[in-house]
């Protein structure tokens, strides 16, 4: 994406940016700087959590019953949980896990939805109609139900298709979330491809007798990159929310993983006696989602300013 293009999109003619005032802080965040702020926060989180998780003060999964339910103190910054595990170490360790989950789920979504959306959009006709009906059927199941159904078939899948799983990395929820988001992303990418289908350069390529494989990857794909990037950028925070929600419902990460959703679920039993168990992972999770939302929203404003989708929620 050329810089000139970006500048043109950010600053439409006649719109002179005003100098920021203090009360415009909200506007500052919510306008074009969203992307920048989001990106800085994400990079900060990535660097901070990778350094932090290499130098944790305590083992995030090791029990230490003597010190259970310690209040936040100089020894345990965020306190300890019912097994005496240090909440600070667990929260820090949760950050890279959450980011890996969000980004790899989006990666799976795009691997499925980009080829599917581009080819169905380009081909049109019966194949497109049939595939889109199936796609719509998947969309008609609310995302969370869909993810729950997929994840609940996990142990059957494991019998045939065993993936490496460690306490800090579990590929099955990531796959479930990736599949769940794919039909909606396919719709968006397909409609971008349909818009391009009637462009002259595509007609020219068809007239030259190029194969549809060539046209899709060499003519259409380079022109739908903005849509794909926006789609991916926005969905990272959905994936993080969905992953945390699945863990909260007891169907995502499994103990003793320091996944934030799971920590919040475990904290609910000690809500009144040890509220810090709830508060710290909640702040961490919300902070990360804010960062990715800023990033994704800003990305959309920059690359795809005309799209104002009615529902940003799914």
């Amino acid at each position: 994406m050329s810089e000139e293009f970006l500048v043109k999109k950010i600053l439409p003619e006649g719109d002179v940016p005003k100098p920021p005032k203090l009360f415009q802080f909200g506007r500052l965040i919510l306008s074009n700087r969203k992307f920048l702020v989001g990106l800085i926060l994400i990079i900060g989180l990535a660097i901070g959590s990778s350094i932090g998780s290499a130098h944790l003060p305590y083992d995030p999964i090791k029990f230490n019953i003597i010190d259970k339910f310690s209040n936040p103190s100089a020894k345990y910054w965020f306190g300890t949980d019912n097994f005496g595990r240090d909440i600070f170490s667990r929260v820090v360790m949760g950050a890279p896990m959450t980011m890996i989950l969000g980004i790899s789920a989006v990666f799976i979504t795009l691997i499925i939805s980009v080829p599917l959306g581009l080819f169905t959009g380009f081909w049109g006709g019966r194949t497109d109609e049939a595939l889109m009906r199936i796609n719509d059927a998947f969309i008609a199941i609310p995302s969370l139900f869909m993810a729950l159904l997929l994840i609940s078939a996990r142990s059957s899948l494991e019998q045939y298709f065993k993936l490496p799983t460690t306490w800090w990395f579990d590929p099955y929820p990531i796959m479930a979330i990736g599949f769940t988001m794919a039909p909606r992303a396919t719709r968006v990418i397909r409609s971008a491809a349909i818009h391009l289908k009637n462009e002259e350069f595509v007609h020219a390529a068809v007239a030259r007798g190029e194969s549809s494989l060539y046209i899709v990857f060499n003519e259409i794909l380079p022109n739908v990159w903005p849509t794909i990037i926006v789609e991916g950028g926005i969905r990272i925070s959905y994936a993080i929310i969905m992953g945390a929600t699945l863990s909260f419902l007891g169907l995502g990460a499994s103990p003793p993983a320091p996944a934030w959703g799971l920590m919040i679920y475990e904290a609910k039993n000690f809500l009144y006696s040890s509220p810090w168990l709830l508060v710290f992972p909640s702040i961490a999770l919300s902070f990360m989602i804010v960062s990715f939302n800023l990033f994704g929203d800003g990305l959309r404003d920059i690359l795809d300013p005309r799209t104002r989708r009615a529902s940003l929620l799914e």
Partner: protein
Amino acid sequence: MKAILRILPKRIAIIIFTLWLISIFIFGITQALPGDAAFMVLGQWANDEALSILRLEMGLDRPLATQYVDWLSNFIRGDFGKSLAMHLPVKPILMGRLINSLQLGVLAFLQIAFVGIILGVICGIKKDSWFDHVTSTFGFIGVSIPEFVSGSLLILLFSGTIWRIFPAGGHVPLSEGLWPWLSRLILPSITLNLVLLAYVMRMTRSSLIEVFRSNYIRTARLKGLDEKRVVFVHALRNALIPTATLLANNFGWLMGGIVVVEMVFAYPGLGRMTILSIQKRDIPMVQASILLVAIIYILANLIADLLYMILDPRTRQSSK
């Protein structure tokens, strides 16, 4: 109206086809759940002989296609089967839960509509004021907090040691008094709102600003009409069309988001029922409840589309 009647048969045909595909998917994936129905009924200590007898009785030895056709035709006739975990017919349980969920959903929906539109209108009129910026910033944070986090924090704040105002969860029917009923619905419905509220607000705000720029509003102002009349009579009527569509479109989403809220507040609704059934591998319950949710979701979207066509005359020509 004519246009709507013209497209309706096709839309209904598509919906029926979509639901059929969904039913195949739901049936397929519930078959893939570990352990079959007979196993669930008898538990893990059952011997093979008892299992095979029960499988024969339940018809689980028949081909999958036959079982599917049987299940679907029963569902269409209104027979949702029998719960494996509760040993009771699924339908009355599910309908009771559905009514509970609808109470929560409708209450949350009304809150979103009122609060979201009012805040959106204020922000639209006082564009770029401090109120606008503060509301937008809070809205953005609201979008970014998952329901289970905000719900848990609300419980901590309002039903715990700090302010003990509302019960932490559960459900009491309306017949036992207005406050016991309402007090248990307030925190869940606020939790459900937080995400959607910001969208409704931003949509109302931006469409109101757009309408303000239009020629007919300029005309109305130049005619010397009272500003209140311009806003509330001329501008708002058109500015609310996208908001109405957004609201209608997201009623289905609300039914999905309700799952988490019901889990957080231990509210006996359809969503919680579904999760517990998935955990218990109560296959007939899972199948029926997810199909029911899909039906509600699709119908809500259909109503949203029709509403949009009624409200916005421009779409009537193009939707042939």
